[in-house]
């Protein structure tokens, strides 16, 4: 936490026989990490208020009787800190050993094996033998949700999911329950997540250090369909998944970026792999039409709210039903695509059943696919949704390396630049603006979508279209969205006509189905890849994509 320039005071403190420069007001942990000290943490989250729950970041400060947690303690002048004294190391090791004493020892059967912070910590602390014997808590897993799976037995009660759910997403579907060593993170009254206020965004999974929170797996369903002789598996891959895989595997941006993804899926046995970009274009084009209509009607209730994010829709249904009429009502790209593929196959295919699989950066899409509204005569538009994590597991289990070079049968990418824009916060608003500009055009003045340089400031932009200058806004994270839209409605503002809402901070690039990672840079990298891909796209505006027209009216 740095103060404003000019008001900070720099001074030196001593850490392990070294003088380090610190700024007044920042915590000891921030200062130590910036100066290259390694301090383990479990409950700490950047940009969140410290809770001091895990105690792993303890350090010894001269003159203090107890060890202090560096995550919550502000730096003081004349401080002398020992970050690795025997007392500190012993305390940290004991803490990890205590956690392990109440943790199921099933690492080999665990989905987060190798990707688990507790495992890493045990390795770093050099835990070699079981030190504390005792009874473990009996906690039961919660399979009830259609998107998020919880296993409280593996929970280390760091509270990151609780803070994420409460502070960023405003949902508070889960919280601490019980006292003493039977405390658990659970939904209210120990009922399942399915009856809680959960909006399925999956951000809790993204912050969970262990396998206490996972996505409900559709992998088994997909495997069964792939091996079923009577089923044709049609996969559609979201552009943000393509970007995420490229980022994860380190592939360079090129014109046929998704081909590797398509090729791996085809090798796994998928009959057809298509790009979801077309449906994204269709979604943008339709939302622009809704916007044009809403703007021309006299009695405007408020701005058009984007409806492509299923977690956002769930949030509105649960917490803000009064805002539901503002939703654009356009189906999300996944459902447009699913319905398109299924209705197409209904006409042509005779005997073989088509099984549609969406590969998405999102766990809420699993819940969206299971919604009753998206079935037609009892047939779901999308049969299974794989997250990026599940995609990796599927591909690896088929002996393939994700991102290995390979050519899909057909040219893969079919979307316009708009499809790539949907992958990050602020992109969709721009895409819709561009489409509206095209619809209302031709205009004398060129299309200019100004994004504010200071990202912390309000994210709004106005586009000049002839005599009108519709306002576009974008927010990500439910708390921010709720606050912003509430403000728009309270102040009865007429200058904002369209609000793009993504439930996950950063948009789909930071979606709940993305690979679990602690680096905030990952979201930025994915966004960068998408923006580079936009430049490579020949078709720039959603409505100009000829393929997108197939989805009109669906």
């Amino acid at each position, binding site marked *: 936490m740095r103060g404003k320039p000019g008001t900070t005071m720099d001074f030196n403190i001593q850490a392990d026989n070294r003088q380090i420069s610190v700024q007044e007001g920042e915590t000891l942990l921030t200062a130590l990490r910036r100066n290259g000290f390694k301090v383990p943490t479990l409950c700490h989250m950047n940009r969140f208020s*410290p*809770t*001091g*729950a*895990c*105690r*792993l970041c*303890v350090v010894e400060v001269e003159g203090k009787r*107890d*060890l202090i*947690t560096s995550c*919550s*303690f*502000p730096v003081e002048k004349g401080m002398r800190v020992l970050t690795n004294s025997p*007392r500190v190391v*012993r*305390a940290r090791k*004991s*803490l990890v050993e*205590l*956690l392990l*004493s*109440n943790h199921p020892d099933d690492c080999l059967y665990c989905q987060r094996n190798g990707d688990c912070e507790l495992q890493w910590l045990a390795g770093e602390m050099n835990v070699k033998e079981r*030190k*504390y*014997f*005792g*009874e473990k808590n009996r906690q039961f897993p919660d399979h009830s949700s259609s998107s998020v799976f919880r296993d409280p037995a593996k929970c*280390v*009660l760091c*509270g990151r999911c609780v803070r994420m759910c409460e502070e960023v997403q405003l949902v508070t579907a889960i*919280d*601490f329950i*019980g*006292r*003493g*060593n*039977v*405390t658990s993170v659970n939904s209210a009254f120990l009922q399942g997540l399915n009856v809680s206020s959960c909006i399925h965004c999956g951000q809790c999974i993204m912050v969970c250090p262990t396998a206490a929170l996972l996505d409900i797996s559709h992998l088994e369903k997909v495997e069964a369909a792939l091996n079923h002789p009577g089923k044709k598996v049609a996969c559609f891959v979201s552009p943000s998944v393509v970007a995420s895989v490229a980022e994860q595997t380190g592939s360079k941006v090129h014109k046929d970026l998704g081909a590797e993804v398509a090729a791996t899926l085809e090798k796994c046995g998928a009959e057809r792999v298509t790009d979801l970009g077309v449906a994204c274009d269709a979604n943008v084009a339709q939302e622009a039409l809704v916007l044009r209509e809403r703007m021309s009607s006299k009695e405007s209730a408020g701005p058009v709210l984007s409806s492509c994010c299923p977690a956002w829709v769930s949030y509105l249904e649960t917490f803000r039903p009064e805002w539901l009429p503002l939703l654009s009502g356009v189906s999300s790209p996944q459902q447009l695509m699913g319905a398109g593929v299924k209705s197409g196959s209904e006409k042509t295919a005779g005997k073989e059943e088509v099984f549609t699989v969406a590969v998405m950066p999102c766990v809420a899409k699993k819940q969206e696919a299971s919604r009753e509204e998206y079935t037609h005569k009892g047939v779901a538009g999308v049969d299974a949704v794989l997250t990026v994590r599940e995609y990796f597991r599927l591909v690896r289990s088929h002996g393939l390396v994700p991102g290995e070079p390979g050519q899909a049968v057909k040219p893969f990418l079919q979307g316009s630049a708009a499809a790539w824009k949907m992958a990050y916060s602020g992109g969709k608003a721009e895409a819709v603006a561009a489409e509206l500009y095209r619809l209302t055009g031709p205009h004398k003045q060129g299309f200019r979508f100004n994004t504010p340089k200071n990202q912390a400031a309000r994210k709004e932009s106005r586009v000049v279209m002839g005599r009108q200058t519709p306002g576009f806004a974008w927010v990500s994270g439910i708390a921010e969205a709720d606050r912003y839209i509430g403000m728009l409605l309270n102040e009865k503002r007429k200058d904002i006509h369209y609000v793009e809402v993504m439930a996950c901070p950063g948009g789909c690039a930071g979606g709940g189905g993305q690979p679990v990672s602690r680096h905030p840079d990952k979201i930025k990298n994915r966004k960068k890849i998408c923006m580079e891909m936009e430049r490579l796209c020949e078709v720039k505006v959603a409505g100009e994509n000829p393929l997108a027209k197939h989805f009109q009216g669906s």
Partner: protein
Amino acid sequence: MKSDLENGTKEFLIQQVLLNPGRAASAKLQKELSYIARERVHRPVIYLGTATCGMVAGAGNTLEAIRAYIGENGLNAELVEVGCIGLCSAEPIMDIQLPGRSRLSFSHVTPDKVQVLLDEVINNHLPDVPVLGQYRSQIHQEWEGVPKMEDHPFFKNQQRMLLEHCGMINPVDITTYIARGGYCAFVDTITHHTPAQVCQLVDQSGLAGRGGGGYPAGKKWAITLGTVSDQRYFVCNAVESDPGSYMNRAIIESNPHRLLEAVLIASYATGATKAFVFIRKEFRLAIRRLREALEQTREYGLTGHHIFDSGVNIDIVIKEGARAFVCGEETALNNSIEGKRAMPASKPPFPAVRGLWNKPTSVNNVETLFNVPLILQNGPDWFASTGTERSKGTKLFTLSGKVRRSGTVEVPMGISFRDIIDRIGGGMNSDKAFKAIILGINSGSYIVEETLDTQVDFEALKNIGSALGSGAFVVVDEDTCMVDLARHFTAFFKKESCGKCIPCREGTARMLEIMESVTRRPGGGESLQPLERFKGVMQLRGLASVIKDTSLCSLGRSSPNAILNTLKHFKPEFDMHIFERKCPANVCRDLRVFSIDVDLCTGCTACYKKCPVDAIIGSPRNPHFIVQDKCIGCGTCYDVCKFNAVLIQ
């Protein structure tokens, strides 16, 4: 008519007493006040202690009996329910005050004694039953041959500042409280002192927090007052949940107005316009009396908006806290008031800077606050004259356990622990040897024979490695197993841990398992195997020190104290449990071995019939025998044997 009188009293008290700076000088006023204060009475007044301790001792039945007596005899007498005088072991205590005569006090007044007692005393005779004492009085005729209350050994060695009205006055009668000088300090304060001056006065007096930490109250208030904010709060911590202490409950039940006055002063001093009294939900009687008292202060205009035209606004809210030990921790308490889960937060920021709803909030304990009106009434120097150099004033203890007299006691700082037991407590209640004083689970400190001459003083206790704690004072003798006690305390912490930080949540569970492996018999099934048991024991000290080092709040940090102190003072007892599998105090059930002395056994079959696991074999009129493999060590045979033939090893 009555309402008029009451209104008259109210106006009189407000105008002539509260708002009259020369109140002390007028003898006429003082005489009038002495009637309201029940120092003089027009008709016989019967007082009965109906605080929780009294009710538990059966004061409810006594109360009914007195009511029936008054009704049957058409007696023109007043019956007043008072709080606890402190001598809980003598409850139910009944006092009788006749016009013109000094007040008499009787202990252990069961319903059957009521008739005799009242018959005699109302007719100006002393009954045959022993009298606890009479109160000293200069204006009344004293009873002959009755000792003074202040000469009673229990009271003689105490210095009763906080307890001065407890058990004497009707707790829910504001008129008595004002007539005895109450609320004058508050009214004088808001009319004559600035908040900063109050902080300074309290700081000068040297009043330290009595909740355990010992932080100077005046300094804390000054920090809150000095923090820039649009809103400040004051919180009174009345969550007294330390096992073995109940003096805060007792003083609230006995004198709730003193607490409210202190909260008002403290709120004024810290610049708070809203104060919360956070009290345990279990304290039903205390809550009821506090609410009633609060209602009276509202009627008198002592709380609320624009108090006595001074421009001071203070609202008091009584908030009942649900059952959780951790609520006593100030940050957890603040969370609980905010409606969140009672979990402690890391400090800094301290609540004095950022507390309730992120606003500066001073949190003080009940006992600390009880001192405040006295300091403002009599000045900081008067307060500082009591106590030692570093620790000022008096300290309340809940004296209990194996002593002759128990209850709430107030001693000046600097008295030795030996004096409290021997003089106030009257020594051990049996010929068993003294073993330790347990100063509350909160501090987990023990005072043992060698440290018994230590003074009650923050510094002196620190020097011997203990802490004053919350005020529990449990005396145990050699019949108590210290290992079992440490296990019991650990079980308490395991249950009460909030579950937030790892050391306290997981560590207390593991410590408890280790302690259980020490105090229990190694069995089959799920219990620990010997090697694992020894491994656990070896790690106990290390684990305990890590928990002490790293826990988030003081609750967690004090959780291993009992074990560490047992290891420090009672190592041989511990070793005996581990190596010889024997409990010297014969408390740990699983380690007791029973046998039957063949010479003493008459073969009465009493034990044979009662044994729950059929571990005793034998035939009538022949000596019996206990099969050790079957015996669960319950001790039933030991209890039923009339011939002392069952032996414990």
